[in-house]
């Protein structure tokens, strides 16, 4: 399959319909692929019924489609079993699930290690767990370029540490985390590892076994699929030992007037009616992703990223946040321009058909560590092309002329 941007764009209805749009906000929401959209419509118009409930043929068809989606997600992650895949509403819900269910097995004084670079979604749930149970929450600092500073790992990931929960890739700087170093440090003390793959999963299929982690969370809307669906993958033996998070229908083994026993995972963690059609749509997006030539896509994304950084560095008063261009990074580039607020920058860029995000990107601790409060972010995806980058650089010239 061709991975040239023009042929890829043709598969995205919104991009195909608006060729003048330069969409550079895929780190927030990637565009939905036609295959995912079609899968949702097909499911809702031919197999719509609740799952795990009915014995009629329509319900059987819905069950089958939903469980096939689970198997597809398992293949995308190279999981041992589809039973390790839990559908949630998104990465945020996935992390909250772990913070409540796995977190519920922790006690006061146990240590959870996160990093300064986390999205609030992987920050606040652990602060709340600290409030509930008295765990100790410890932060891995970042370097001046926003990468996790691993020099202190032996002190931070100590015998009290039960969980290391970190981002796979920063949603602000694009810096990839050295997962192997963290896993090695965690294994040494018997701690588990959660990887927040909200940004990472968009850049290709994952291998949770090779990563040797324990939990992986990602969202459908960042992986060219529908919104309102996400995945939590967890090691089977860990999920089996965890109490439920949300409770209700579908997650029980038996309810009596006196007590309730839980279903086995993954149903134990899918209380209520799950996002069925969304999961089917996500599976179509993941199947499509698994068919792509990712080394070629990564090479092109890296070229676009380098060109963007090179152009940005020539703008007076502009400060880049994050690693050097030569560092292996996801194609996410954030910057601030002296005297200009990101909202104003993005507003003017919008008038030039450029869609970028400005603000704190739900990563206030990271921005504070980088000496910023807000910034402007351009995030490149597999459908981005040279015209997007040149339009942004031209647009910033316009911003400077009009607002400075």
């Amino acid at each position, binding site marked *: 399959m061709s991975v040239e941007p023009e042929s890829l764009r043709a598969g995205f209805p919104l991009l195909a319909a608006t060729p003048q749009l330069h969409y550079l906000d895929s780190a927030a929401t990637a565009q939905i692929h036609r295959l995912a959209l079609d899968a949702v419509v097909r499911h809702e118009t031919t197999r719509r019924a609740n799952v795990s409930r009915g014995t009629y043929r329509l319900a059987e068809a819905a069950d089958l489609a939903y469980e096939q989606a689970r198997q597809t997600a398992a293949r995308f992650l190279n999981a041992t079993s589809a039973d390790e895949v839990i559908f949630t509403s998104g990465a945020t819900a996935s992390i909250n699930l772990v913070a409540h269910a796995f977190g519920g097995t922790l006690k006061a004084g146990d240590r959870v290690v996160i990093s300064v670079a986390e999205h609030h979604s992987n920050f606040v749930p652990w602060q709340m767990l600290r409030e509930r149970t008295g765990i100790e929450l410890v932060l891995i600092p970042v370097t001046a370029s926003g990468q996790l500073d691993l020099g202190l790992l032996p002190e931070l990931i100590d015998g009290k540490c039960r969980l290391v929960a970190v981002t796979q890739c920063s949603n602000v700087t694009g810096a990839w985390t050295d997962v192997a170093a963290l896993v090695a440090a965690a294994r040494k003390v018997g701690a588990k590892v959660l990887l927040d793959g909200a940004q990472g999963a968009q850049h290709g299929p994952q291998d949770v076994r090779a990563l040797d982690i324990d939990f992986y969370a990602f969202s459908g809307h960042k992986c060219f699929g529908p919104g309102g669906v996400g995945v939590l993958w967890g090691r089977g033996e860990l999920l089996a030992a965890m109490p439920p998070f949300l409770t209700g229908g579908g997650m029980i083994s038996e309810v009596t007037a006196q007590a309730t026993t839980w279903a086995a995972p993954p149903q134990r963690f899918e209380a209520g009616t799950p996002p069925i059609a969304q999961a089917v749509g996500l599976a179509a997006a993941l199947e499509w992703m698994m068919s792509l030539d990712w080394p070629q896509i990564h090479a092109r994304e890296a070229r676009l990223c380098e060109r963007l950084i090179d152009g940005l560095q020539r703008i007076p008063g502009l400060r880049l946040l994050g690693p050097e261009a030569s560092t292996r990074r996801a194609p996410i580039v954030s910057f601030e321009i002296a005297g200009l*607020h990101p*909202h*104003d920058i993005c*507003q*003017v860029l919008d*008038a030039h058909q450029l869609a970028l995000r*400005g603000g704190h990107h739900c990563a206030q601790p990271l921005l504070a560590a980088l000496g910023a409060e*807000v910034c402007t972010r351009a995030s490149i995806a597999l459908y981005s092309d040279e015209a997007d980058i040149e339009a942004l650089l031209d647009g910033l010239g316009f911003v400077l002329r*009009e*607002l400075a």
Partner: protein
Amino acid sequence: MNDGSGLYQDAIKQFAQAANGHGRLEAADGEARLDNPLCGDRVRMQVAVASGRITAVAHETKGCLLCRAAASAIGARAVGEDAAAIESVATALEGMLKNGAPVPAGWPELSMFEPARAYPSRHRCVLLPFRALLAALRPEVGAGGTAISSN
């Protein structure tokens, strides 16, 4: 100048740059700090009040041009008004932005925000300083922020 969005008229840039009322009061009767969680804008508003009317206003505003221009408009015109009048202006301004209502009476410069009608995500930028001012005047109202002190 036309920036392409139609939003950044010279009046907005001039008000933002003038930063009327920027700073702190030595003795404030009311003070509030409000944040816009979407973008990190922050307004700290202080007021001195005598016989129910504002005798001095000062603000420290970190934010976009719209937020800074709105705070500057307050700095230029709020002295002499009472809480009811400010509330009336804030309500009228919100109506102007959301429903195309007339420019708030007595505050003609707020017409500079009329182009922001087309950008609902920016309404909060314009309204934040007014909400901060109301919270400083009437901390019991809250306005969703942090009322630091009042008496």
